[in-house]
Structure formats: structure tokens, C-alpha cells
């Protein structure tokens, strides 16, 4: 708990009830006070909450204890310099009337509020573009409302044209018919995706072009919306772990760890030392994997296919260790609430060293092709620049934010699992262009390898699972031979690990940025609500700012450089 933040915020808002929940200060404000509260949080220099992480809603229709209103909107906002986190809860009396928008303070509120509108039907007054984002435009109803049946699928017969949106965007850039007539040309509309090799998944990029220059850009996501949050509400906490694999599937184990950490921090479960080190080693190893795929694919977009073989072959080789350890190549499901599924196998250190060595070689070989390559430099330097203030406003985190020169990394700023004891640096960019985003990932690979080697030396022996029988399954001998063991086993499997009632947010520095989980628990073994704060959702929301004014071919490599992963983007 952050007591200074609590005192500071309580002093700033004396008539608003302030509580705390893990690291966050929780403020409950009425809709009429919302704008002044948010404005003060953002603009008061002592508060300076510049990074709006997430917006979500809660539907209390089936919640066991009665609440003042059925709906609630939650803004999660961070002061990244002073490691302060605030959650602003706003009760919504009537979702059709809604609450005022926060888009005038943070650009990230735009997509965050659109998602809340789409999933819960809560209106944000004054929002510039309030329409569906994850579900298709022909969808009726709001799926995360508790009275929407999970199996109620709706067929989409036709894709959205986006004609109005692109024309509005053009108009907002000051381009209209007369400007085009003056320069004697016509706008060409070019649609990329959702099935296009350059989109690395399923994203739709609609551009208005003057020659090859992008005048305006509008993006549509949601093509891989798989209902993670609704599905999670129907599963026990441990059963959600396989779903988290499929968020960012390039670094599945990191999502497992982030999720388990978020649940454990609310339960107050302190995992064993060995489990902590295992999590550090594995999450850094997967950070390397994620960056390898990102850089490999990005350079393929640029025409550097050789890099793909150098980098991807090392990832492919790493599957030997991963599948020997977890039993799966891609989707590991290796954590449990309270620890790890099992310990490392015998002789893993040698395997790990071989892989690290191979990765270092592959990355160095690739760097030889890139570092002094004039074509790479010309195509990436000063191209698709994201300045630091805009990056923060759009809710950027992770390598893309650091490329813009903002030194925010949860491993340094809010360390967990002994990250403060490791010797590593946070690489920073100076411009926020594509070059910085690629180079930061290269450097982070070397830093992660260094962390892994340090952690391997420091890792103590011992169990990898807590012994608390509210969380850990009893040993099989007890399950078969005594009734308490059997009952405890059944209860944990069927009812799940019980989390005390409440709301909390916890986050983790994943390969792409801050991966957060916001939970509401009703005291049962299943999350009442489970919201993911996906890093690339907010990165994609600022994509148009980067590419407008650039060439169409640059938009393609820019998309690769921000590492959009559909599973995490659309959930």
C-alpha cells in the first residue's frame, strides 16, 4: 500500500471518500464531480497523473451485496514518475444518460470509453466518436452486462464501411474537396486488412492517400475479439490461466505470471523465493522470445528476410526448453495461483545457457545486417515519430513509450519479485521513431539475458508452491488417504480459490508494456469481473497519429514496430 499517495490524494480531495486497494488509491466520485476531479488529477503539479491506463465498467446486477447503482465506471490512472496509482470510480445511475467523457484530458480515454460503451452500453457525454469497437456494428445489446447470455452469438453479414469515419478524419485535418481541386488531384482510399500480410493478424487500416502519402487514417479492431472477459467470469481463478496464454501468444508464460501475480497480490499470498526467481527467469526468457518475433517480423516487412531466419530459428530452438519444461510449445499454462506448476527439470541450466548463447549469436548476426544498413536507417529514422507527451496521452507503455524517451518501466518503478536487486538498465530512445522502437527491443534482449544469468546464480532451492491449503492442492497421498485432503482437493477444483470480496488492479511489465488486470470479486471462487489492461490496445489507438503525413509503406513497418498482437488487442 502506498500511504504517501493516499495522504496526498485525501488532502487534495477532502470531501471525497478515499480508500486504498493494493497499490492504488480508490476515489469514488459522483458524475457531476468527475470532470473537476479528473482535471485536478491530471493538471495539478503535485498530483500529475499523466497516464490514463484503462477505462472499464462494472455491472452489479448479480452482485450479492447491494450497490448504490447498477453500473460503475472505473478509470485507472498512473503518475509514472512517483509510482502513484489512482482508481476513480464513478457510479452510473442511468447508462443511457451516462457520465461526462474524459477524452479532453487523455487521448487514451477515446478507445477505453468506446470499449466500455460497447461492452456495457454506458454513454459518455461529449465523446467524439462513441461507437462499437470490439463487437461488430450489427451487434445488438451489450455482452458484458450480466443479463446478456454468454452463448448468444450474433451473425455479422457485412463489414462496416468506415466511410463516415474516414471522411470525418479528413475534415478534421482540414482536407476537403476544394483543397484537392487546388492541387489537382483526387484522394485515393486504400484499405489494408483485416486479412493482409502487413497487418500481422487481423486489424483493418483504412487510409486516405494523396499519391503515396497518408492524409488520414482510421483503424478498426475487434476482429479477434474472443470474449475473454465474459468467459473468465464463468471460470474459477485457476481455470482462467489457459485463457491468459492466448492474450499475447508470443509470450504466453508472461501473461500467466502477470495474471497469477494479480490474483495473489489480492489474496495476500506470498509465493516462495524459488517461485519468484523462476518467474523472473521465465518472464525474461519470454520477453526475449517476444522481441525476437517482433523484430523478425518487422524486418521481413522491410524486406530483410535473412533476419527472419537468424532470429526466428533461435526462437524455434528455444521451444526445446519450453516444451520440455511446460509440455507445450506456445501456450504454456505454467503458473498456478500460489506458485508454479512444477520446478525446472534436471539439467535445465545447461539447456538455458545453450539457448541464451544461441540467441546472443542470432541477435548479433542480425544486428550486423541492420546496424550500418543505410536502407534500414533511411526507412526508420525520423519516420512515424511519436513524441513523449503524445505517447503518454495515448496510454503508451513498455518499449514503445521508452522509445519516446520516457523512462517508465514497472520493473524499476514498482519492482516486484526482487527486480530491484538485479543489475540491468532500461534502454531509452531519443526520438520515438521506428528506429528507436526496433533498437530498444534489440537492447532489451541483451538486458533480459543478463537478468536471467544473474537470477540463475541467485536462485535458492526449495518448494515452488505455497503450503497454504486455501490455495494449494494437497499432495496426492493426502487426497487418497484422508478425508480432509479429499474435501480440500474437491473444494479447490470445483469452487476455486476464494478471493475476498472487493475490487483491485495489479500490473506487470510484460514484453509489450504494462499488462494489468482489474478484478471485481464477490467472495466466490470465480471472478465477478476480470478486465485485462492490454498494452497494445492503447498503442493501436494512437497509430493514426504516427502515420498521418507519412508514406503508406511506412505505415506497414510502423505497425510491425509497435508489435500488435491480436489476442491481446481484442481479447
Amino acid at each position, binding site marked *: 500500500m502506498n500511504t504517501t499517495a493516499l495522504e496526498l490524494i485525501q488532502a487534495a480531495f477532502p470531501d471525497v471518500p478515499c480508500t486504498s486497494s493494493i497499490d492504488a488509491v480508490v476515489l469514488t466520485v459522483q458524475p457531476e464531480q468527475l470532470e473537476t476531479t479528473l482535471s485536478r488529477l491530471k493538471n495539478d503539479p503535485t498530483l500529475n497523473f499523466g497516464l490514463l491506463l484503462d477505462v472499464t465498467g462494472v455491472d452489479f446486477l448479480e452482485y450479492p451485496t447491494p450497490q448504490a447503482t447498477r453500473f460503475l465506471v472505473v478509470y485507472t490512472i498512473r503518475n509514472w514518475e512517483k509510482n502513484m496509482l489512482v482508481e476513480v470510480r464513478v457510479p452510473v445511475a442511468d447508462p443511457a444518460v451516462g457520465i461526462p467523457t474524459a477524452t479532453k484530458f487523455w487521448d487514451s480515454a477515446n478507445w477505453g470509453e468506446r470499449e466500455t460503451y460497447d461492452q456495457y452500453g454506458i454513454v459518455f457525454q461529449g465523446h467524439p466518436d462513441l461507437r462499437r469497437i470490439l463487437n461488430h456494428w450489427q451487434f445488438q445489446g451489450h455482452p458484458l452486462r450480466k443479463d446478456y447470455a454468454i452463448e448468444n452469438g450474433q451473425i455479422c453479414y457485412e463489414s462496416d464501411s468506415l466511410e463516415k469515419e474516414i471522411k470525418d478524419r479528413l475534415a478534421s485535418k482540414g482536407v476537403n474537396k476544394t483543397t484537392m481541386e487546388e492541387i489537382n488531384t483526387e484522394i485515393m482510399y486504400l484499405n489494408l486488412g483485416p*486479412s493482409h500480410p502487413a497487418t500481422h*493478424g487481423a486489424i483493418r487500416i483504412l487510409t486516405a492517400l494523396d499519391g503515396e502519402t497518408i492524409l488520414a487514417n482510421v483503424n478498426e479492431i475487434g476482429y479477434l475479439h474472443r470474449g475473454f472477459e465474459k*468467459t473468465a467470469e464463468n471460470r474459477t481463478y485457476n481455470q482462467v490461466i489457459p485463457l491468459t496464454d492466448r492474450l499475447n501468444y508470443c509470450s504466453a508464460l508472461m501473461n500467466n505470471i502477470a495474471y497469477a501475480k494479480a490474483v495473489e497480490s489480492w489474496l495476500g499470498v506470498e509465493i516462495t523465493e524459488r517461485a519468484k526467481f523462476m518467474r523472473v527467469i521465465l518472464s525474461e526468457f519470454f520477453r526475449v522470445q517476444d522481441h525476437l518475433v517482433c523484430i523478425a517480423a518487422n524486418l521481413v516487412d522491410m524486406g530483410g528476410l535473412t533476419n527472419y531466419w537468424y532470429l526466428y530459428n533461435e526462437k524455434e530452438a528455444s521451444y526445446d526448453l519450453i516444451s520440455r519444461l511446460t509440455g507445450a510449445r506456445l501456450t504454456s499454462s505454467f503458473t498456478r495461483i500460489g506458485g508454479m506448476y512444477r520446478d525446472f527439470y534436471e539439467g535445465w541450466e545447461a539447456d538455458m545457457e545453450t539457448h541464451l548463447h544461441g540467441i546472443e549469436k542470432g541477435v548479433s548476426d542480425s544486428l550486423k545486417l541492420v546496424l550500418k544498413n543505410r536502407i534500414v536507417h533511411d526507412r526508420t529514422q525520423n519516420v512515424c515519430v511519436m513524441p513523449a507527451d503524445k505517447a503518454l496521452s495515448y496510454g503508451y507503455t513498455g518499449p514503445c513509450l521508452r522509445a519516446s524517451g520516457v523512462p517508465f518501466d514497472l520493473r524499476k518503478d514498482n519492482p516486484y519479485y526482487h527486480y530491484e536487486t538485479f543489475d540491468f538498465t532500461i534502454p531509452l530512445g531519443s526520438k520515438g521513431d521506428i528506429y528507436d522502437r526496433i533498437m530498444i527491443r534489440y537492447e532489451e534482449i541483451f538486458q533480459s539475458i543478463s537478468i536471467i544469468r544473474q537470477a540463475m546464480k541467485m536462485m535458492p532451492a526449495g518448494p515452488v508452491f505455497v503450503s497454504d491449503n486455501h490455495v494449494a492442492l494437497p499432495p496426492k497421498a493426502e487426497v487418497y488417504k484422508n478425508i480432509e485432503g479429499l474435501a480440500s482437493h474437491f473444494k479447490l477444483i470445483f469452487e476455486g480459490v476464494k478471493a475476498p470480496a472487493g475490487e483491485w488492479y495489479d500490473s506487470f511489465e510484460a514484453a509489450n508494456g504494462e499488462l494489468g488486470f482489474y478484478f471485481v470479486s464477490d467472495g466466490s471462487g470465480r471472478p465477478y469481473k476480470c478486465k485485462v489492461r492490454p498494452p497494445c490496445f492503447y498503442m493501436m489507438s494512437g497509430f493514426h497519429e504516427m502515420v498521418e503525413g507519412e508514406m503508406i509503406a511506412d505505415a506497414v513497418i510502423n505497425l510491425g514496430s509497435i508489435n500488435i498482437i*491480436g*489476442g491481446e488487442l481484442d481479447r
Partner: protein
Amino acid sequence: MALGLEASLGDTVLTTKLDAVINWGREYSLWPFVFGTACCAIEFMSAAASQLDISRWGAEVVRFSPRQADLLLVCGTISYKQAPILKRIYEQMPEPKWVVAMGACASSGGVYDNYCTVQGIDTIIPVDVYISGCPPRPEAVLDALMKIQDQIKGESVLNDRHKDFKGILD
């Protein structure tokens, strides 16, 4: 020693059945269109990378235009929002064409039995081979390729494939 017609034409001419020679050509020059949406696409990347090397089956010319492809590999979850696009891509591919549903999601919806996920792409387009797994190992992609090759062997150029198919979008 040649028999029949071949005997009288000398050793410069071979005779065969039209089906056999066309199918032989089709079998070893499949051009896949990878409809990659999710995790399975990463495993397809592994199948294409040097360790497993999909070119050993003559299917390494991955085309990103449906007009140039005859094998549709659906790698990943298909949501209702994505469904009309998948159908259009399938329709844009010239005949004859084959479809592989890679992984649990494409085959049946997988773990995503919910409001936004299509419960198997065979409700939209006809499927020839299903691959199990979540995601399948890349070797399974190669296995599916061989199954497609086996199917091609048994086909005739005179017959249309799947002409009576009706899906939820038809």
C-alpha cells in the same frame, strides 16, 4: 517395354490419364493462403521456418492474394466480425481449392464457446481437413498437407467440389 499406343509411338511419348497427371501437378505445387488470425499463425510460421521447412511438400509459395492460391489455411479463431471476410476470401480463390481448419478454434470454436466466436469455420465455408490442437504442433500442419495431397489424388477434373455447400452466411 511399352505396351499399346505407347509401343507404336516410340519412347518419346508417355500416355496417362488426364486426372492422374493434373492431380500429380496439383499435389506438389499447392500455393497456400494463410488466413492467420491468432496463435495458430505463429505455429504456421514455425512450419514454414527452416527447421521443418514446408517446401519439402512443395507448398512454400505462400501467397497473400486469394487469386493466386489454391489452399486456404485458416490459422486461428474466427469471430463473427471476421466471418464475412473469410467467406469473401474463400470465394475469391479460383477453383479447385482446398481448405484446412488449423487448430481447435477454427475447427469448433475451441475454448471460446461464447457470443463472439464462430463455432467452427465449417459453418461458413466447406472444410477438407481439420487439425486438432490448441495450437497444433507444426508437424501437424505438415500432416494436414499430406492429407490434402491424398485427397487431391482421388479427385477428378470433371467434378466440381462442394457445390451444394450452404453456410450461415449464404
